[in-house]
């Protein structure tokens, strides 16, 4: 589980769309940020063709949505199409920290004189976009921040003022870029990165490394680009970039069903309404000595069909031994939830023990519906704590 997925947005989990390097670079290119030429490949043969098209030495880069590709052997130089094919064969299918490599970005190799770092992201506290820039790029930026904080230049942008040339000057001069040609190119990239950030409704645009070639040309050699899910309605082209193939199949199913689901490693399926309550339910199951199998949030609505869909997702996980339903009705009506549980049990022939705790809107009606059904595997509990304990017992 990625904790990013566990950041609640009030009603539901915060979701942002992480783009692959090649997709981020496509957006960089659109906004005028210089990148190297490259071609996407999904087989060694395609990698060979790509290398032939590009000519000269290329870099074969695993496209996975996780850091540390290089250390894991997911980025390799190839001096010929032959070698590109070989390297592609080695990298494709590789597992990088839980992510299987399914796509490669074959890119013309760059000579590197210097490596810088440039990013633009949300500072949630200041409620302003924040530029970070350092001439100590290429390495883990958190290390730079920790070991040489002065080398990392930070600069907020007032979103109403927008990004002006002075922002760029402040970054390059404070970071100590001395070559006027570099200053000029980086200043231009700063402005374009801001355009991309605002134009694509990004939460993060990171270039690490931002390289300077021996000829003095500045280019983005990598990209990390994260887009606000809430703004995808106005960026259908970016929405289509979502990599469904690379994601956990259960999470893909959940997304299709409109359920927020994050897979965990335990045996107690946890289902709540609202991200905060669900997160808290996961905690309480753990404190009660159990191991949660997932985080599953019905969301704000939670009609009967939503309950059926959520149960379908949860029970696909064969590790699940019991399910804890923790519902506090607000917009969600407990009678609807109860009906959904009965419907799912009937349709799916569920025999797993299901502990149900209902409170809030129409809780009495919901409890009555469940009681009248008198199914053996339904275990009503009056409180969240008791419900969690019971579910843990039943999973044992």
């Amino acid at each position, binding site marked *: 589980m990625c*904790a990013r997925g566990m*950041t609640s947005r*009030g009603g539901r989990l915060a979701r942002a769309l992480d783009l692959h390097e090649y997709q981020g670079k496509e957006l960089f290119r659109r906004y005028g940020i210089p990148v190297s030429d490259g071609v996407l490949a999904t087989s060694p043969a395609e990698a060979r063709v790509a290398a032939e098209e590009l000519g000269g030495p290329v870099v074969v880069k695993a496209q996975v949505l996780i850091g540390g590709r290089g250390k894991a052997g997911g980025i390799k130089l190839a001096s010929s199409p032959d070698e590109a094919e070989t390297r592609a064969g080695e990298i494709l299918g590789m597992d990088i920290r839980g992510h299987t490599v399914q796509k490669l970005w074959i890119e013309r190799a760059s000579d590197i004189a210097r490596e810088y770092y440039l990013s633009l*992201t949300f500072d949630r506290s200041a409620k302003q*976009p924040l530029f970070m820039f350092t001439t100590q790029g290429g390495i883990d930026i958190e290390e730079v921040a920790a070991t040489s904080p002065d080398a990392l230049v930070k600069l907020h942008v007032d979103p109403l003022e927008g990004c002006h040339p002075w922002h760029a000057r402040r970054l390059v001069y404070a970071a100590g870029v001395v070559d006027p040609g570099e200053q000029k190119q980086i200043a231009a990239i700063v402005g374009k990165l801001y355009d991309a950030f605002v134009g694509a*409704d990004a939460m*993060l645009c990171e270039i690490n490394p931002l390289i300077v070639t021996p000829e003095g040309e500045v280019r983005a050699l990598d990209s990390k680009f994260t887009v606000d899910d809430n703004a995808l309605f106005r960026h259908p082209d970016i929405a289509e970039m979502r990599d469904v193939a690379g994601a956990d199949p259960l999470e893909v199913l959940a997304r299709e069903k409109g359920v927020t689901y994050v897979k965990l490693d335990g045996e107690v399926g946890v289902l709540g309404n609202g991200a905060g309550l669900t997160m808290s339910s996961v*905690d309480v199951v753990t404190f009660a000595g159990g191991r949660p199998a997932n985080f599953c949030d019905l969301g704000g609505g939670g009609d009967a069909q939503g309950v059926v869909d959520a149960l379908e997702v949860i029970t696909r996980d064969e590790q699940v031994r019991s399910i804890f339903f923790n519902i506090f009705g607000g917009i969600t009506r407990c009678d609807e939830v109860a009906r959904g549980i009965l419907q799912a049990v009937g349709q799916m022939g569920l025999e797993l023990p299901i502990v149900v705790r209902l*409170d809030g809107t129409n809780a009495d009606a919901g409890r009555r519906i469940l009681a009248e059904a008198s199914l053996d595997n339904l275990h009503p509990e009056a409180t*969240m704590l008791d419900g969690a304990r019971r579910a843990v017992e039943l999973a044992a």
Partner: protein
Amino acid sequence: MAILVDSSTRLVVQGLTGSEGRFHGLRNRSHGTDVVAGVTPGKGGQDVEGIPIFDTVAEAVSKAGANTAMVFVPAPFASDAMYEAIDAGIGTVICITEGVPAHEMLRIHAFIAGRDVRLIGPNCPGALSPGKANVGIIPAEIFREGSIGLVSRSGTLTYQIGHELTQLGLGNSTIVGIGGDPIVGSSFIDVLALFEADPQTEYVVMVGEIGGDEEEKAAAFIESAMTKPVVAYIAGFTAPPGKTMGHAGAIISGSAGTAQAKKDALEARGVRVGTTPTETAELVAELARG
């Protein structure tokens, strides 16, 4: 007294003629909220069970004396609705709508800086002052009036904790859901300051979550600026560590963003932190019992 919403609240519901707006607007009214107007462009002159509909918020202000707005319009139109309410002179704007793009909220947040308006939300359950007024989707029936201020980034988790307080015989001055979006109109600190100044509020419960560093900032504020005791709860203790917003995010906040880090920060400033909603309510009860 209470904060944000009370018996002086004169509410206009932006989107009152929509199904959700209607349901919750009327529910708020049935809880005693003075719902004076609805706004739906093109439906001016109609009414929703006696509540007059206007085409613009400006009319709702000039003709119905609205001083508080609840935004219930779909996400693509929500920031426009917020600007409209702010520009019409509404003093308290509560945006329930979820899914508002973060960049729009950035701009709105910068826009209201220095203006005399308080924005709650978006993507929040609203504010409830039991016995006085309810603006939003918080189920009023599970809360009772009392002296505990409750502020939360979460929705249903707030209900859970309020419920646990009620079970222990405790009541609330105001319950405020500030919303959990990356950029919200009011932060923990903003609401804590209101509770500190509110005579009805004697204790405050703050309900946080993993991610960001708002709880850490609140801890510093509580130590330096609050005289009233605060009890906190943080959800997400057992969430595995991970990146919140790439590497950049962690550098910005200077915080791991984990529940444990938040708990430590709060306890270091003398704030007691419960690990479950039940334990949290018990900590408050202990305080209340003296």
